[in-house]
């Protein structure tokens, strides 16, 4: 259960497998598509029903990862059951997958999408994720916008890498006209996931990277505030 992955109190399902290799990833153990614990839709659904009394007015189920939309096809029956049981559904995604399964999942069964905006430039995007084509994320955002259903954006603030005023203004002005974006969440960079890299025997690309001061975070927040309905720092 968590309170930081979507509205209210939520059951968070971490799905295994991601193609991105984000330098600050705090769950690098979820990259591999061949490991992880297999669970049936029924078992997951049963667990959600067990926890439902805690969801309150706004909580529900979040699928995160890894990149959950790699398993869009499998998520459809899960979300379908959740919706039938009156449970709020949320997908936390990097927006790189958009096939007809994804579209069905998002358009029909997903109450909220939380979309990670990695970077506003192609080089920055590649530097962070190790993959090209930042525009896939924007196509994804446009698709959600067209569907008219709610979306939150998430943006990781890294000193020197994503936090320059120029980049932040670009982020703001790009999405300023979107009607479905309810909130921008700023995630200040932190080192809490470093131990997982070490446990996996991987060297941590951002070793030595400093964290933001409170004041810097506040500056970024107030710079972005005019562009969005709500800007929230996690």
């Amino acid at each position, binding site marked *: 259960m*968590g309170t930081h992955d979507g509205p*209210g109190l939520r059951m968070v399902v971490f799905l295994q497998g991601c193609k991105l290799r984000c330098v600050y990833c705090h769950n690098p153990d979820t990259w591999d598509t061949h490991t992880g614990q297999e669970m049936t839709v029924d078992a997951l659904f049963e667990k959600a029903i067990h926890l439902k*009394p805690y969801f309150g007015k*706004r*909580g529900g189920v979040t699928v995160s990862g890894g990149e959950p939309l790699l398993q869009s096809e499998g998520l459809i029956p899960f979300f379908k059951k959740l919706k039938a049981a009156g449970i709020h559904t949320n997908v936390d995604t990097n927006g790189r997958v958009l096939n007809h399964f994804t579209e069905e999942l998002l358009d029909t069964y997903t109450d909220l999408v939380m979309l990670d905006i990695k970077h506003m430039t192609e080089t920055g995007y590649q530097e962070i994720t190790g993959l090209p084509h930042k525009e896939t994320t924007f196509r994804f955002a446009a698709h959600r916008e067209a569907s008219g259903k709610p979306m939150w954006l998430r943006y990781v603030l890294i000193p020197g890498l994503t936090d320059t005023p120029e980049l932040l203004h670009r982020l703001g002005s790009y999405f300023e006209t979107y009607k479905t974006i309810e909130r921008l969440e700023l995630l200040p960079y932190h080192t809490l996931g470093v131990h997982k890299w070490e446990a996996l025997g991987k060297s941590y690309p951002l070793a030595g990277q400093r964290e933001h001061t409170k004041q810097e975070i506040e500056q970024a927040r107030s710079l972005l505030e005019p562009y969005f309905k709500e800007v*929230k*720092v996690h």
Partner: protein
Amino acid sequence: MVETKFTDGTWTKKVDVRDFVINNISPYHGNADFLVGPSGKTKALWDICKKALREERQNNGVRSLDTDTISTVSAFGPGYIDRTNEVIVGLQTDELLKRSMKPFGGFKVVQKALSEHGAVPNEHLTEMFSNYVKTHNDGVFDAYNDEIRKYRSLGILTGLPDNYARGRIIGDYRRVALYGIDFLIQSKKDDLAQITGPMTDAVIRLREEVSEQIKALEQMIELGAKYELDLHRPANNAQEAVQWTYMAYLAAVKEQDGAAMSLGNVSTFLDIFIQKDLEEGRISENEAQELIDQFVMKLRVVRHLRMAAYDEIFAGDPTWVTEVIGGLFANGMTKVTKTSFRFLNTLYNLGPSPEPNLTVLWSDELPEAFKEFCAKVAIDTSSIQFENDTLMRESRGSDDYGIACCVSYQELGKSIQFFGARTNLAKTLLLALNEGRCELSGKKVVDGIAPVPEGVLDYDTVMANFKKASKEIARVYNDTMNIIHYMHDKYYYEKAQMALIDTNPHIDMAYGIAGLSIVADSLSAIKYAQVTPIRNEHGLTVDFEIQGEFPKYGNDDDRVDLLAKAAVADFNQELQQLGVYRNATPTLSVLTITSNVAYGKKTGATPDGRALGIPFAPGANPMHGRDANGAIASLNSVAKLDYETAQDGISNTFSIVPQSLGSDRVEQNENLVGILDGYFSKKAQHINVNVLNKETLMDAIEHPEEYPQLTIRVSGYAVNFVRLTREQQQEVITRSFHNSL
């Protein structure tokens, strides 16, 4: 027939406070915006109290003592904090925070407590109590047999109310305000006339008790007169209603020093008087809050004379002035009023505090604004606890109840309970593995327990022995309780409180167990892993070798949670078989207060891997650090314990760091509401909520002077953290502080 300006009902014909409340209540569905801060008078008084409290802490926990007067309802002259600023008057003695002698529980205890502060009782009293006057404690030890003495000394039964007063009884203090004492005396006289022969033991006893109650009511009138209050008649306005109610409670805490001296549910009742005065323009909101602030201030300075050893089982000098707030009537109408908010607001106006022990009766049908305010107060102050109103109301049958002590339902004015501390269930399990011998001393405790075969423990064999041992423990526990309560009735009868309860009420015999999580985890280890006892030269277990993994209680895993559930149900079942003094109904609690530390010391290594001497988890909590799957999983495990088999209450103390409840205060409040709704929907009964960082507590250990009001919930009650011993502070810090849900 009562003459009234309120809506009448059966309450005007006979004593029936509930009927008055339900006919006159103004339920409140709004938010906390109407609340106001403390008045100038309140601030002036509280400044004096804070200074006095500091002096008390600096003077080894006692500010002053009286060594000449036996405290009775009317023994002391009037006492004031600062008369010009007091809108509610009355102190237990003639001076703020002065402690007095209440020797009928046990005179040696009084002597000991005084001597620890360099004082001795008046010579004449010493002579009287040494030679002529018998106490509860004397009576109990006259009747105890060798078996009971052995159980006590080995730590199988501890914390028993055999050398201190039993407490737990809640007088219906509202009656004095609603009816005035003349009416109550007349009702009791009518009752007495109806108690007729044949003169059996029970009838004679009851006649004597009711006569004593009438005397206590007369003393209450005298007490009122000392403060120039006319308690003959009912209260006429809000100020009088609060004052009369407090006088009734004050009478109780002047006469008795029971471990828990709970208040009941006066907040909903008092609101009716306050609301009427507000509507008719006689008082303002400021004055309404002032009444409640000053009443609560008085409740915060209730003190009893205790010896240091008492602190081991009841740490931090608690008084358990438990007041319930909220809940619903059976017809679905909420009992939340503006005065429910005003009581909680005292935690802002006067700062956080362990007393009174504010207990919110939670139901998912409570007004949403009230729920959110409660969550906010819990997060801000860690001073309140929550109990499941829906569960208790439906299971126990009344919607007019208070909480005795920490977690125990008690119908107001109709029912009482006999407090019974607790037995050590973890040690009982060790008896099962040691042929009925105490694992530490080797002394035989229970006959007829066969040795368990050498090597890896077999679950069924252990369970069969455990059942036998439990049966014997229950038998001796029951004998002990019967003696204790027989003698308490005889030598230290609660005449002032019983005068405010219906004649011949229903009685619950409140048993308890400690060490539940250890039993559950031990049985799980034996069942799912390979556990081999390591024995000393006397064949007693000194440690256990555990091979393999086993599920641990606190992770929402049925394999072990159902073992915990069954352990409670089984022990309760044993108790139900036994004859109880005054035909009381046996009930069982899973509650330790702070005796979990003392019990740990007296219990050897256990098959779950716990080492000798390590504190138990408090109440029904999972063992520290073993609930590793997040807060909700831990709560779900506790929620599986069946209240029907533990009707005296199931205590769960929950600590969580603020950030894990959400990233801002609005979210945190809302998510705590979600947690409470979820937990109670699973039929859990109780939860203490601490929202704190461990670092705050560690800093308070180093700099106590900076945290005079830091309050933390421990096990069904709250304490000033800085008043705990270093050992108790450390134990609190080792508990699980959930940083994930």
